Protein backbone atom coordinates (compact mmCIF):
# COMPACT_ATOMS: atom_id res chain seq x y z
CA UNK A 1 0.00 0.00 0.00
CA UNK A 2 2.71 2.43 0.97
CA UNK A 3 4.39 1.82 -2.38
CA UNK A 4 1.19 2.65 -4.21
CA UNK A 5 0.80 5.86 -2.22
CA UNK A 6 4.39 6.87 -2.86
CA UNK A 7 4.10 6.07 -6.57
CA UNK A 8 0.85 8.04 -6.73
CA UNK A 9 2.38 11.15 -5.18
CA UNK A 10 5.49 10.85 -7.32
CA UNK A 11 3.35 10.35 -10.43
CA UNK A 12 1.21 13.34 -9.54
CA UNK A 13 4.32 15.43 -8.91
CA UNK A 14 5.69 14.47 -12.30
CA UNK A 15 2.25 15.12 -13.82
CA UNK A 16 2.28 18.57 -12.23
CA UNK A 17 5.63 19.27 -13.85
CA UNK A 18 4.27 18.11 -17.20
CA UNK A 19 1.23 20.31 -16.78
CA UNK A 20 3.34 23.40 -16.13
CA UNK A 21 5.09 22.85 -19.44
CA UNK A 22 2.07 21.53 -21.36
CA UNK A 23 -0.41 24.24 -20.36
CA UNK A 24 1.54 26.93 -22.20
CA UNK A 25 2.37 24.62 -25.05
CA UNK A 26 -1.29 23.78 -25.49
CA UNK A 27 -2.49 27.39 -25.39
CA UNK A 28 0.23 28.47 -27.81
CA UNK A 29 -0.67 25.75 -30.27
CA UNK A 30 -4.40 26.25 -29.83
CA UNK A 31 -4.24 29.99 -30.44
CA UNK A 32 -1.34 30.37 -32.83
CA UNK A 33 -0.90 26.97 -34.49
CA UNK A 34 2.70 27.18 -33.39
CA UNK A 35 4.47 24.02 -32.32
CA UNK A 36 6.94 25.58 -29.94
CA UNK A 37 9.87 23.20 -29.80
CA UNK A 38 11.73 25.82 -27.78
CA UNK A 39 9.30 25.47 -24.89
CA UNK A 40 11.57 23.05 -23.05
CA UNK A 41 14.31 25.65 -23.28
CA UNK A 42 12.10 28.06 -21.35
CA UNK A 43 11.88 25.49 -18.57
CA UNK A 44 15.66 25.21 -18.56
CA UNK A 45 16.00 28.99 -18.42
CA UNK A 46 13.67 29.06 -15.42
CA UNK A 47 15.54 26.24 -13.73
CA UNK A 48 18.97 27.83 -14.24
CA UNK A 49 17.66 31.28 -13.32
CA UNK A 50 16.35 29.94 -10.03
CA UNK A 51 19.46 27.88 -9.41
CA UNK A 52 21.68 30.87 -10.14
CA UNK A 53 19.71 33.16 -7.85
CA UNK A 54 19.36 30.59 -5.04
CA UNK A 55 23.10 29.89 -5.17
CA UNK A 56 23.73 33.34 -3.77
CA UNK A 57 24.29 35.36 -6.94
CA UNK A 58 21.16 37.45 -6.55
CA UNK A 59 21.10 39.78 -3.54
CA UNK A 60 18.32 38.76 -1.18
CA UNK A 61 17.80 35.39 -2.81
CA UNK A 62 18.97 32.15 -1.30
CA UNK A 63 18.20 28.51 -0.72
CA UNK A 64 15.76 28.92 2.12
CA UNK A 65 12.56 30.71 3.11
CA UNK A 66 11.80 34.05 1.50
CA UNK A 67 15.15 33.94 -0.27
CA UNK A 68 14.10 30.82 -2.12
CA UNK A 69 10.74 32.32 -3.04
CA UNK A 70 12.61 35.29 -4.47
CA UNK A 71 14.85 32.93 -6.41
CA UNK A 72 11.80 31.16 -7.87
CA UNK A 73 10.22 34.50 -8.77
CA UNK A 74 13.47 35.56 -10.44
CA UNK A 75 13.76 32.33 -12.42
CA UNK A 76 10.13 32.59 -13.51
CA UNK A 77 10.59 36.21 -14.52
CA UNK A 78 13.68 35.41 -16.60
CA UNK A 79 11.74 32.61 -18.32
CA UNK A 80 8.82 34.94 -19.00
CA UNK A 81 11.02 37.62 -20.51
CA UNK A 82 12.78 34.98 -22.61
CA UNK A 83 9.40 33.78 -23.90
CA UNK A 84 8.37 37.28 -24.91
CA UNK A 85 11.69 37.86 -26.66
CA UNK A 86 11.30 34.50 -28.42
CA UNK A 87 7.82 35.41 -29.65
CA UNK A 88 8.75 38.88 -30.83
CA UNK A 89 12.13 38.07 -32.35
CA UNK A 90 11.70 34.56 -33.75
CA UNK A 91 8.05 33.52 -33.96
CA UNK A 92 6.39 36.74 -35.11
CA UNK A 93 8.52 37.34 -38.21
CA UNK A 94 7.74 33.77 -39.31
CA UNK A 95 3.95 33.64 -38.81
CA UNK A 96 3.28 33.08 -42.46
CA UNK A 97 6.04 30.50 -42.80
CA UNK A 98 5.20 27.56 -40.53
CA UNK A 99 8.00 25.33 -41.78
CA UNK A 100 10.67 27.90 -41.05
CA UNK A 101 8.94 28.59 -37.75
CA UNK A 102 9.32 24.95 -36.68
CA UNK A 103 12.97 24.94 -37.72
CA UNK A 104 13.58 28.15 -35.81
CA UNK A 105 12.00 26.86 -32.60
CA UNK A 106 13.90 23.58 -32.91
CA UNK A 107 17.05 25.64 -33.34
CA UNK A 108 16.36 27.69 -30.22
CA UNK A 109 15.50 24.47 -28.39
CA UNK A 110 18.96 23.14 -29.25
CA UNK A 111 20.86 26.38 -28.81
CA UNK A 112 19.69 27.18 -25.29
CA UNK A 113 20.89 23.91 -23.69
CA UNK A 114 24.15 24.31 -25.61
CA UNK A 115 24.51 27.83 -24.25
CA UNK A 116 23.77 26.66 -20.71
CA UNK A 117 26.36 23.88 -21.12
CA UNK A 118 28.90 26.35 -22.40
CA UNK A 119 28.44 28.64 -19.42
CA UNK A 120 27.87 26.21 -16.55
CA UNK A 121 28.99 22.87 -17.94
CA UNK A 122 26.95 19.89 -19.04
CA UNK A 123 27.00 18.09 -15.70
CA UNK A 124 24.01 18.24 -13.42
CA UNK A 125 24.28 20.88 -10.72
CA UNK A 126 22.88 20.22 -7.22
CA UNK A 127 19.82 22.36 -6.68
CA UNK A 128 19.90 24.40 -3.46
CA UNK A 129 16.35 23.94 -2.20
CA UNK A 130 15.07 24.92 1.22
CA UNK A 131 15.62 22.41 3.99
CA UNK A 132 11.97 22.64 4.96
CA UNK A 133 11.03 21.08 1.64
CA UNK A 134 13.59 18.30 1.70
CA UNK A 135 11.73 16.31 4.34
CA UNK A 136 8.91 13.83 4.01
CA UNK A 137 5.48 13.36 5.48
CA UNK A 138 3.63 10.16 6.28
CA UNK A 139 0.51 9.12 4.36
CA UNK A 140 -0.94 5.64 4.88
CA UNK A 141 2.44 4.33 5.88
CA UNK A 142 4.35 5.92 3.01
CA UNK A 143 7.01 8.57 3.48
CA UNK A 144 6.18 11.08 0.75
CA UNK A 145 8.73 13.79 -0.12
CA UNK A 146 7.33 17.27 0.59
CA UNK A 147 8.56 18.73 -2.68
CA UNK A 148 5.96 16.62 -4.56
CA UNK A 149 3.18 18.52 -2.85
CA UNK A 150 4.82 21.85 -3.70
CA UNK A 151 4.75 20.93 -7.38
CA UNK A 152 1.18 19.65 -7.20
CA UNK A 153 0.10 22.79 -5.37
CA UNK A 154 1.85 25.03 -7.89
CA UNK A 155 0.26 23.20 -10.82
CA UNK A 156 -3.21 23.48 -9.25
CA UNK A 157 -2.64 27.19 -8.61
CA UNK A 158 -1.54 27.73 -12.22
CA UNK A 159 -4.54 25.76 -13.50
CA UNK A 160 -6.89 27.83 -11.35
CA UNK A 161 -5.26 31.12 -12.34
CA UNK A 162 -5.34 30.25 -16.03
CA UNK A 163 -8.99 29.23 -15.89
CA UNK A 164 -9.84 32.49 -14.15
CA UNK A 165 -7.82 34.41 -16.73
CA UNK A 166 -9.59 32.65 -19.60
CA UNK A 167 -13.09 32.94 -18.18
CA UNK A 168 -13.06 36.33 -16.47
CA UNK A 169 -10.85 38.66 -18.47
CA UNK A 170 -11.23 40.22 -21.89
CA UNK A 171 -7.77 38.97 -22.87
CA UNK A 172 -8.86 35.48 -21.85
CA UNK A 173 -11.98 35.85 -23.96
CA UNK A 174 -9.87 36.87 -26.94
CA UNK A 175 -7.64 33.83 -26.41
CA UNK A 176 -10.62 31.46 -26.24
CA UNK A 177 -12.13 32.99 -29.35
CA UNK A 178 -8.76 32.97 -31.12
CA UNK A 179 -8.35 29.27 -30.49
CA UNK A 180 -11.63 28.76 -32.35
CA UNK A 181 -11.27 31.21 -35.23
CA UNK A 182 -8.30 33.54 -35.28
CA UNK A 183 -9.24 35.31 -38.49
CA UNK A 184 -12.68 36.23 -37.16
CA UNK A 185 -11.12 37.72 -34.05
CA UNK A 186 -9.09 40.10 -36.22
CA UNK A 187 -12.19 40.79 -38.32
CA UNK A 188 -13.83 42.09 -35.15
CA UNK A 189 -11.09 44.69 -34.84
CA UNK A 190 -8.91 42.92 -32.28
CA UNK A 191 -5.14 42.83 -32.66
CA UNK A 192 -4.67 39.13 -32.10
CA UNK A 193 -0.87 39.51 -32.12
CA UNK A 194 -1.06 41.06 -28.66
CA UNK A 195 -2.84 37.93 -27.49
CA UNK A 196 -0.04 35.88 -29.07
CA UNK A 197 2.60 37.70 -27.06
CA UNK A 198 0.53 37.44 -23.90
CA UNK A 199 -0.01 33.72 -24.33
CA UNK A 200 3.69 33.24 -24.95
CA UNK A 201 4.46 35.17 -21.78
CA UNK A 202 1.99 33.09 -19.76
CA UNK A 203 3.26 29.83 -21.25
CA UNK A 204 6.86 30.88 -20.64
CA UNK A 205 6.08 31.81 -17.04
CA UNK A 206 4.41 28.45 -16.36
CA UNK A 207 7.27 26.52 -17.97
CA UNK A 208 9.89 28.54 -16.11
CA UNK A 209 8.04 27.96 -12.84
CA UNK A 210 8.07 24.27 -13.75
CA UNK A 211 11.82 24.53 -14.21
CA UNK A 212 12.27 26.30 -10.87
CA UNK A 213 10.23 23.72 -8.98
CA UNK A 214 11.51 20.85 -11.12
CA UNK A 215 14.88 21.54 -9.53
CA UNK A 216 13.29 20.57 -6.21
CA UNK A 217 11.78 17.43 -7.71
CA UNK A 218 14.94 16.20 -9.37
CA UNK A 219 17.34 17.67 -6.79
CA UNK A 220 19.52 19.06 -9.56
CA UNK A 221 19.47 21.06 -12.76
CA UNK A 222 21.07 20.12 -16.05
CA UNK A 223 20.94 21.68 -19.51
CA UNK A 224 18.91 18.85 -21.09
CA UNK A 225 16.18 18.72 -18.45
CA UNK A 226 13.79 20.87 -20.45
CA UNK A 227 14.30 18.99 -23.69
CA UNK A 228 13.56 15.62 -22.13
CA UNK A 229 10.44 16.92 -20.37
CA UNK A 230 9.24 18.60 -23.58
CA UNK A 231 8.66 15.26 -25.30
CA UNK A 232 6.26 14.16 -22.58
CA UNK A 233 4.66 17.58 -22.49
CA UNK A 234 3.85 17.16 -26.19
CA UNK A 235 2.36 13.75 -25.41
CA UNK A 236 0.24 15.45 -22.76
CA UNK A 237 -0.89 18.20 -25.14
CA UNK A 238 -1.95 15.75 -27.84
CA UNK A 239 -3.58 13.41 -25.32
CA UNK A 240 -5.53 16.22 -23.70
CA UNK A 241 -6.63 17.79 -26.96
CA UNK A 242 -4.70 20.60 -28.63
CA UNK A 243 -5.65 23.89 -27.06
CA UNK A 244 -7.50 22.46 -24.07
CA UNK A 245 -6.35 23.44 -20.62
CA UNK A 246 -8.56 20.99 -18.76
CA UNK A 247 -7.50 18.28 -21.18
CA UNK A 248 -3.84 19.09 -20.48
CA UNK A 249 -4.48 18.84 -16.73
CA UNK A 250 -6.20 15.46 -17.02
CA UNK A 251 -3.63 14.13 -19.44
CA UNK A 252 -0.76 15.31 -17.21
CA UNK A 253 -2.11 13.29 -14.31
CA UNK A 254 -2.68 10.23 -16.52
CA UNK A 255 0.75 10.39 -18.15
CA UNK A 256 2.57 11.01 -14.85
CA UNK A 257 0.83 8.13 -13.08
CA UNK A 258 1.10 5.64 -15.95
CA UNK A 259 4.78 6.42 -16.33
CA UNK A 260 5.57 5.97 -12.64
CA UNK A 261 3.55 2.81 -12.13
CA UNK A 262 4.73 1.17 -15.34
CA UNK A 263 8.35 2.00 -14.58
CA UNK A 264 8.07 0.53 -11.10
CA UNK A 265 6.05 -2.60 -11.78
CA UNK A 266 7.64 -3.51 -15.10
CA UNK A 267 11.10 -2.75 -16.36
CA UNK A 268 12.50 0.71 -15.84
CA UNK A 269 12.04 2.60 -19.09
CA UNK A 270 8.90 0.74 -20.05
CA UNK A 271 6.89 3.54 -18.45
CA UNK A 272 7.99 5.92 -21.18
CA UNK A 273 6.89 3.42 -23.79
CA UNK A 274 3.58 2.86 -21.98
CA UNK A 275 2.84 6.56 -22.24
CA UNK A 276 3.30 6.54 -26.00
CA UNK A 277 1.16 3.39 -26.33
CA UNK A 278 -1.51 5.10 -24.24
CA UNK A 279 -1.40 8.09 -26.57
CA UNK A 280 -1.68 5.94 -29.69
CA UNK A 281 -4.60 3.97 -28.24
CA UNK A 282 -6.41 7.16 -27.23
CA UNK A 283 -5.95 8.78 -30.62
CA UNK A 284 -7.41 5.73 -32.32
CA UNK A 285 -10.56 6.09 -30.23
CA UNK A 286 -10.66 9.89 -29.92
CA UNK A 287 -8.62 11.58 -32.64
CA UNK A 288 -9.07 15.01 -31.05
CA UNK A 289 -7.72 13.91 -27.69
CA UNK A 290 -9.54 13.71 -24.38
CA UNK A 291 -11.45 16.94 -24.77
CA UNK A 292 -10.60 18.61 -28.05
CA UNK A 293 -11.70 21.95 -26.70
CA UNK A 294 -10.43 24.78 -24.60
CA UNK A 295 -10.85 25.29 -20.86
Amino acid at each position, binding site marked *: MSTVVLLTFTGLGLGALYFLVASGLSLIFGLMDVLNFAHGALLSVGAYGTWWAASGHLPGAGSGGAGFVLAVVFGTAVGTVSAVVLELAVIRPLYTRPREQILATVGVGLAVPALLSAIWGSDARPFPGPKALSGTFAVLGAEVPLNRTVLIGAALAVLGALKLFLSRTRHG*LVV*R*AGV*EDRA*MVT*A*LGIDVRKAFTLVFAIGGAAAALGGALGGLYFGSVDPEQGTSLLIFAFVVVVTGGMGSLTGAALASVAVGLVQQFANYYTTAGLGDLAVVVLLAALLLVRPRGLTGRLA
Partner: protein
Amino acid sequence: MTPTAAPLLTVRDLRVVIGGKHILHGVDLEVAASGTTAVLGRNGAGKTTTVRGILGLVPRTGSVLLAGEETVRLATHALVRRGIGYAPEDRGVFASLSVAENLRLAERPGAGEPAYDLVHTLFPELRRRARQAAGTLSGGQQQMVAIARTLLNGNRLIIADEPTKGLAPKVVTEVAQVLERAAEAVPVLLVEQNLALVRRLARHCVVLAAGRTAHQGPAADLLADAEAARRLLAVGSTGGTGSTGTGSTGTGSTGGTGPGAIGGTGDTGAGGTGSIGIAGGTGAIGGTGTAGRTGGAGSPTAGSPVRTAARPAARTTEADA
Protein backbone atom coordinates in the same frame (compact mmCIF):
# COMPACT_ATOMS: atom_id res chain seq x y z
CA MET B 1 -27.48 58.91 -52.62
CA THR B 2 -27.16 61.61 -55.15
CA PRO B 3 -25.02 60.76 -58.10
CA THR B 4 -22.43 63.29 -57.03
CA ALA B 5 -21.90 62.01 -53.49
CA ALA B 6 -18.48 60.51 -53.01
CA PRO B 7 -18.49 56.78 -52.44
CA LEU B 8 -17.62 55.56 -48.97
CA LEU B 9 -15.53 52.69 -50.22
CA THR B 10 -13.70 52.59 -53.50
CA VAL B 11 -12.00 49.42 -54.62
CA ARG B 12 -9.70 49.51 -57.62
CA ASP B 13 -7.99 46.62 -59.36
CA LEU B 14 -8.33 44.28 -56.40
CA ARG B 15 -6.38 41.12 -57.09
CA VAL B 16 -6.14 38.03 -54.95
CA VAL B 17 -3.89 35.05 -55.51
CA ILE B 18 -4.27 32.09 -53.17
CA GLY B 19 -1.95 29.13 -53.41
CA GLY B 20 -0.77 30.23 -56.83
CA LYS B 21 -4.33 30.42 -58.14
CA HIS B 22 -5.69 33.74 -59.33
CA ILE B 23 -9.07 34.21 -57.66
CA LEU B 24 -9.61 37.90 -58.39
CA HIS B 25 -8.25 39.41 -61.58
CA GLY B 26 -8.93 43.04 -60.82
CA VAL B 27 -12.21 43.91 -59.17
CA ASP B 28 -13.44 47.50 -59.21
CA LEU B 29 -16.36 48.56 -57.11
CA GLU B 30 -17.78 51.45 -55.20
CA VAL B 31 -19.94 51.39 -52.12
CA ALA B 32 -22.26 54.35 -51.97
CA ALA B 33 -22.16 56.62 -48.95
CA SER B 34 -25.71 55.66 -48.10
CA GLY B 35 -28.06 52.78 -48.64
CA THR B 36 -27.22 49.25 -49.65
CA THR B 37 -24.84 48.24 -52.40
CA ALA B 38 -25.28 44.64 -53.45
CA VAL B 39 -22.56 42.39 -54.82
CA LEU B 40 -24.03 39.79 -57.13
CA GLY B 41 -22.65 36.97 -59.19
CA ARG B 42 -22.77 33.27 -59.60
CA ASN B 43 -21.13 30.93 -57.16
CA GLY B 44 -17.39 31.07 -57.68
CA ALA B 45 -17.49 34.55 -59.21
CA GLY B 46 -15.35 35.88 -56.37
CA LYS B 47 -17.89 37.67 -54.20
CA THR B 48 -16.70 36.35 -50.85
CA THR B 49 -13.06 36.66 -51.86
CA THR B 50 -13.70 40.29 -52.80
CA VAL B 51 -15.07 40.98 -49.34
CA ARG B 52 -12.23 39.10 -47.68
CA GLY B 53 -9.78 40.95 -49.90
CA ILE B 54 -11.23 44.32 -48.95
CA LEU B 55 -10.81 43.38 -45.29
CA GLY B 56 -7.31 42.01 -45.76
CA LEU B 57 -8.30 38.53 -44.64
CA VAL B 58 -6.58 37.22 -47.75
CA PRO B 59 -3.38 38.60 -49.30
CA ARG B 60 -4.36 41.16 -51.91
CA THR B 61 -3.07 43.93 -54.10
CA GLY B 62 -4.80 46.94 -55.56
CA SER B 63 -6.41 49.87 -53.85
CA VAL B 64 -9.07 49.98 -51.14
CA LEU B 65 -10.03 53.51 -50.21
CA LEU B 66 -12.24 53.96 -47.15
CA ALA B 67 -13.56 57.51 -47.11
CA GLY B 68 -10.57 58.51 -49.18
CA GLU B 69 -7.97 56.78 -47.01
CA GLU B 70 -5.89 54.04 -48.59
CA THR B 71 -6.25 50.94 -46.43
CA VAL B 72 -4.72 48.19 -48.50
CA ARG B 73 -1.62 48.09 -46.34
CA LEU B 74 -3.48 48.08 -43.06
CA ALA B 75 -3.83 44.94 -40.99
CA THR B 76 -7.39 43.64 -40.82
CA HIS B 77 -7.96 44.69 -37.22
CA ALA B 78 -6.71 48.21 -37.89
CA LEU B 79 -9.00 48.58 -40.91
CA VAL B 80 -12.00 47.20 -39.04
CA ARG B 81 -11.38 49.60 -36.19
CA ARG B 82 -11.78 52.44 -38.64
CA GLY B 83 -15.46 51.57 -38.54
CA ILE B 84 -16.37 48.38 -40.35
CA GLY B 85 -18.78 45.73 -39.12
CA TYR B 86 -18.42 42.38 -40.85
CA ALA B 87 -20.84 39.48 -40.85
CA PRO B 88 -19.09 36.71 -42.80
CA GLU B 89 -20.62 34.07 -44.99
CA ASP B 90 -20.21 31.33 -42.38
CA ARG B 91 -21.44 33.78 -39.72
CA GLY B 92 -18.13 33.60 -37.83
CA VAL B 93 -19.84 32.85 -34.56
CA PHE B 94 -17.62 31.42 -31.84
CA ALA B 95 -19.43 28.20 -31.07
CA SER B 96 -18.00 27.49 -27.63
CA LEU B 97 -18.55 31.03 -26.37
CA SER B 98 -21.85 32.29 -25.07
CA VAL B 99 -23.99 34.76 -26.98
CA ALA B 100 -22.99 37.51 -24.55
CA GLU B 101 -19.31 36.69 -25.01
CA ASN B 102 -19.68 36.73 -28.78
CA LEU B 103 -21.13 40.21 -28.52
CA ARG B 104 -18.55 41.35 -25.99
CA LEU B 105 -15.78 40.47 -28.43
CA ALA B 106 -17.21 42.99 -30.86
CA GLU B 107 -16.96 45.79 -28.31
CA ARG B 108 -14.20 48.24 -29.04
CA PRO B 109 -12.75 49.58 -25.82
CA GLY B 110 -12.18 53.29 -26.09
CA ALA B 111 -14.53 53.69 -29.04
CA GLY B 112 -17.71 54.67 -27.27
CA GLU B 113 -20.46 52.78 -25.52
CA PRO B 114 -21.57 49.63 -27.30
CA ALA B 115 -25.14 49.90 -28.56
CA TYR B 116 -26.66 47.03 -26.61
CA ASP B 117 -30.02 48.79 -26.45
CA LEU B 118 -30.28 48.81 -30.22
CA VAL B 119 -29.13 45.21 -30.50
CA HIS B 120 -31.56 43.96 -27.89
CA THR B 121 -34.40 45.94 -29.41
CA LEU B 122 -33.76 44.40 -32.80
CA PHE B 123 -33.02 40.92 -31.47
CA PRO B 124 -34.74 40.47 -28.11
CA GLU B 125 -33.98 36.78 -28.37
CA LEU B 126 -30.28 37.44 -27.94
CA ARG B 127 -30.88 38.95 -24.54
CA ARG B 128 -32.86 35.89 -23.47
CA ARG B 129 -30.19 33.57 -24.77
CA ALA B 130 -27.23 35.60 -23.51
CA ARG B 131 -25.69 32.71 -21.59
CA GLN B 132 -26.35 30.03 -24.18
CA ALA B 133 -23.39 28.66 -26.12
CA ALA B 134 -23.56 30.18 -29.59
CA GLY B 135 -22.85 26.82 -31.18
CA THR B 136 -26.19 25.52 -29.93
CA LEU B 137 -28.20 28.31 -31.60
CA SER B 138 -30.17 27.78 -34.78
CA GLY B 139 -28.78 29.12 -38.04
CA GLY B 140 -31.08 32.12 -37.88
CA GLN B 141 -30.11 32.93 -34.32
CA GLN B 142 -26.42 32.64 -35.20
CA GLN B 143 -27.00 35.07 -38.04
CA MET B 144 -28.61 37.43 -35.55
CA VAL B 145 -25.45 37.25 -33.43
CA ALA B 146 -23.32 37.95 -36.50
CA ILE B 147 -25.40 40.96 -37.52
CA ALA B 148 -25.72 42.18 -33.93
CA ARG B 149 -21.93 42.33 -33.72
CA THR B 150 -21.87 44.69 -36.70
CA LEU B 151 -24.43 46.98 -35.06
CA LEU B 152 -22.79 47.16 -31.66
CA ASN B 153 -20.34 49.84 -32.68
CA GLY B 154 -20.94 53.07 -34.49
CA ASN B 155 -19.60 51.62 -37.71
CA ARG B 156 -19.28 53.57 -40.93
CA LEU B 157 -19.85 50.52 -43.10
CA ILE B 158 -21.48 47.14 -42.61
CA ILE B 159 -20.41 44.23 -44.77
CA ALA B 160 -22.80 41.29 -44.81
CA ASP B 161 -21.84 38.24 -46.82
CA GLU B 162 -24.89 36.19 -47.80
CA PRO B 163 -26.72 36.82 -44.54
CA THR B 164 -29.80 34.90 -45.63
CA LYS B 165 -28.02 31.82 -46.86
CA GLY B 166 -29.53 28.64 -45.53
CA LEU B 167 -32.19 30.39 -43.46
CA ALA B 168 -35.89 29.62 -43.23
CA PRO B 169 -38.18 32.01 -45.13
CA LYS B 170 -39.51 33.63 -41.97
CA VAL B 171 -35.98 34.32 -40.73
CA VAL B 172 -34.97 35.67 -44.13
CA THR B 173 -37.68 38.25 -43.78
CA GLU B 174 -36.50 39.15 -40.28
CA VAL B 175 -32.92 39.52 -41.43
CA ALA B 176 -34.07 41.63 -44.36
CA GLN B 177 -35.97 43.94 -42.05
CA VAL B 178 -32.94 44.41 -39.82
CA LEU B 179 -30.64 45.08 -42.75
CA GLU B 180 -33.14 47.52 -44.18
CA ARG B 181 -33.26 49.36 -40.91
CA ALA B 182 -29.49 49.29 -40.51
CA ALA B 183 -29.03 50.65 -44.01
CA GLU B 184 -31.05 53.72 -43.10
CA ALA B 185 -28.22 54.76 -40.81
CA VAL B 186 -25.12 53.05 -42.18
CA PRO B 187 -24.11 52.09 -45.71
CA VAL B 188 -24.27 48.33 -46.25
CA LEU B 189 -22.24 46.21 -48.63
CA LEU B 190 -24.39 43.17 -49.16
CA VAL B 191 -23.29 40.00 -50.90
CA GLU B 192 -26.48 38.22 -51.81
CA GLN B 193 -27.85 35.60 -54.17
CA ASN B 194 -31.44 36.25 -53.25
CA LEU B 195 -32.53 38.67 -55.94
CA ALA B 196 -35.80 39.55 -54.31
CA LEU B 197 -33.87 40.63 -51.26
CA VAL B 198 -31.56 42.65 -53.46
CA ARG B 199 -34.56 44.19 -55.14
CA ARG B 200 -35.95 45.16 -51.78
CA LEU B 201 -32.78 46.46 -50.15
CA ALA B 202 -30.22 47.56 -52.69
CA ARG B 203 -29.97 50.83 -54.51
CA HIS B 204 -26.77 49.94 -56.25
CA CYS B 205 -25.32 46.72 -57.40
CA VAL B 206 -22.05 45.30 -58.59
CA VAL B 207 -21.99 42.10 -60.59
CA LEU B 208 -18.88 39.96 -60.53
CA ALA B 209 -18.02 37.28 -63.02
CA ALA B 210 -14.93 35.11 -62.99
CA GLY B 211 -13.06 37.35 -60.59
CA ARG B 212 -13.78 40.60 -62.41
CA THR B 213 -16.36 43.32 -62.25
CA ALA B 214 -18.90 42.70 -64.99
CA HIS B 215 -21.38 45.45 -64.22
CA GLN B 216 -22.01 48.33 -61.86
CA GLY B 217 -25.08 50.47 -61.61
CA PRO B 218 -28.46 51.02 -60.02
CA ALA B 219 -29.88 47.75 -58.78
CA ALA B 220 -33.36 48.47 -60.07
CA ASP B 221 -32.11 48.97 -63.61
CA LEU B 222 -30.39 45.61 -63.67
CA LEU B 223 -33.27 43.73 -62.15
CA ALA B 224 -35.75 45.34 -64.49
CA ASP B 225 -33.73 44.31 -67.50
CA ALA B 226 -34.40 40.62 -67.81
CA GLU B 227 -31.94 40.20 -70.64
CA ALA B 228 -29.11 41.86 -68.73
CA ALA B 229 -29.89 39.90 -65.61
CA ARG B 230 -29.80 36.67 -67.54
CA ARG B 231 -26.55 37.58 -69.21
CA LEU B 232 -24.78 38.81 -66.09
CA LEU B 233 -26.15 36.43 -63.56
CA ALA B 234 -26.79 33.52 -65.88
CA VAL B 235 -30.12 32.86 -64.35
CA GLY B 236 -33.52 31.89 -65.44
CA SER B 237 -33.11 30.53 -68.91
CA THR B 238 -35.66 27.90 -68.08
CA GLY B 239 -37.76 30.04 -65.89
CA GLY B 240 -40.76 29.24 -67.97
CA THR B 241 -41.02 25.83 -66.54
CA GLY B 242 -41.76 27.30 -63.22
CA SER B 243 -44.73 29.20 -64.36
CA THR B 244 -47.21 29.47 -61.61
CA GLY B 245 -49.69 31.07 -63.87
CA THR B 246 -52.51 30.86 -61.48
CA GLY B 247 -54.73 32.41 -63.97
CA SER B 248 -53.10 35.76 -63.94
CA THR B 249 -52.56 37.65 -67.02
CA GLY B 250 -50.17 40.20 -68.16
CA THR B 251 -47.54 41.53 -65.89
CA GLY B 252 -48.28 39.47 -62.90
CA SER B 253 -47.25 36.17 -64.26
CA THR B 254 -43.91 34.98 -63.16
CA GLY B 255 -43.61 32.21 -65.58
CA GLY B 256 -42.33 32.26 -69.03
CA THR B 257 -41.59 35.90 -69.29
CA GLY B 258 -38.64 36.38 -67.15
CA PRO B 259 -35.43 35.08 -65.77
CA GLY B 260 -37.58 33.46 -63.20
CA ALA B 261 -35.21 32.19 -60.65
CA ILE B 262 -31.90 32.35 -59.10
CA GLY B 263 -32.38 29.47 -56.92
CA GLY B 264 -31.07 26.22 -55.79
CA THR B 265 -27.61 27.47 -56.27
CA GLY B 266 -26.14 24.19 -55.47
CA ASP B 267 -24.82 25.08 -52.07
CA THR B 268 -26.07 22.09 -50.22
CA GLY B 269 -29.15 20.04 -50.08
CA ALA B 270 -30.71 22.17 -47.47
CA GLY B 271 -28.94 25.34 -48.32
CA GLY B 272 -29.03 27.81 -51.07
CA THR B 273 -31.37 30.58 -51.67
CA GLY B 274 -34.83 29.84 -52.64
CA SER B 275 -36.43 30.52 -55.92
CA ILE B 276 -37.25 33.99 -56.83
CA GLY B 277 -39.05 35.23 -59.79
CA ILE B 278 -37.76 38.60 -60.72
CA ALA B 279 -39.90 39.24 -63.70
CA GLY B 280 -43.31 40.67 -63.65
CA GLY B 281 -42.86 42.46 -60.41
CA THR B 282 -42.78 39.48 -58.18
CA GLY B 283 -41.41 40.19 -54.83
CA ALA B 284 -41.25 36.93 -53.07
CA ILE B 285 -38.22 36.34 -51.00
CA GLY B 286 -37.66 32.71 -51.12
CA GLY B 287 -35.92 31.17 -48.26
CA THR B 288 -34.60 27.76 -48.00
CA GLY B 289 -37.12 25.12 -47.95
CA THR B 290 -36.11 21.87 -46.52
CA ALA B 291 -34.08 20.18 -49.15
CA GLY B 292 -34.69 23.22 -51.25
CA ARG B 293 -38.03 21.99 -52.41
CA THR B 294 -40.10 24.85 -51.28
CA GLY B 295 -37.88 27.58 -52.42
CA GLY B 296 -40.33 30.15 -53.54
CA ALA B 297 -42.65 29.91 -50.64
CA GLY B 298 -41.18 32.83 -48.79
CA SER B 299 -43.22 35.65 -47.54
CA PRO B 300 -44.01 38.43 -49.90
CA THR B 301 -42.23 41.58 -49.07
CA ALA B 302 -41.86 44.07 -51.81
CA GLY B 303 -44.61 46.45 -52.45
CA SER B 304 -45.12 45.29 -55.96
CA PRO B 305 -47.81 42.83 -56.84
CA VAL B 306 -46.65 39.67 -55.34
CA ARG B 307 -46.81 36.36 -56.88
CA THR B 308 -44.77 33.75 -55.19
CA ALA B 309 -42.34 32.54 -57.60
CA ALA B 310 -43.09 29.11 -58.22
CA ARG B 311 -42.76 25.74 -56.91
CA PRO B 312 -39.86 23.44 -57.41
CA ALA B 313 -39.41 23.87 -61.10
CA ALA B 314 -38.32 27.45 -60.82
CA ARG B 315 -35.38 26.69 -58.67
CA THR B 316 -33.40 24.83 -61.17
CA THR B 317 -32.00 27.46 -63.35
CA GLU B 318 -28.58 27.96 -61.96
CA ALA B 319 -26.92 24.69 -61.33
CA ASP B 320 -23.66 25.99 -60.04
CA ALA B 321 -20.76 28.02 -61.09
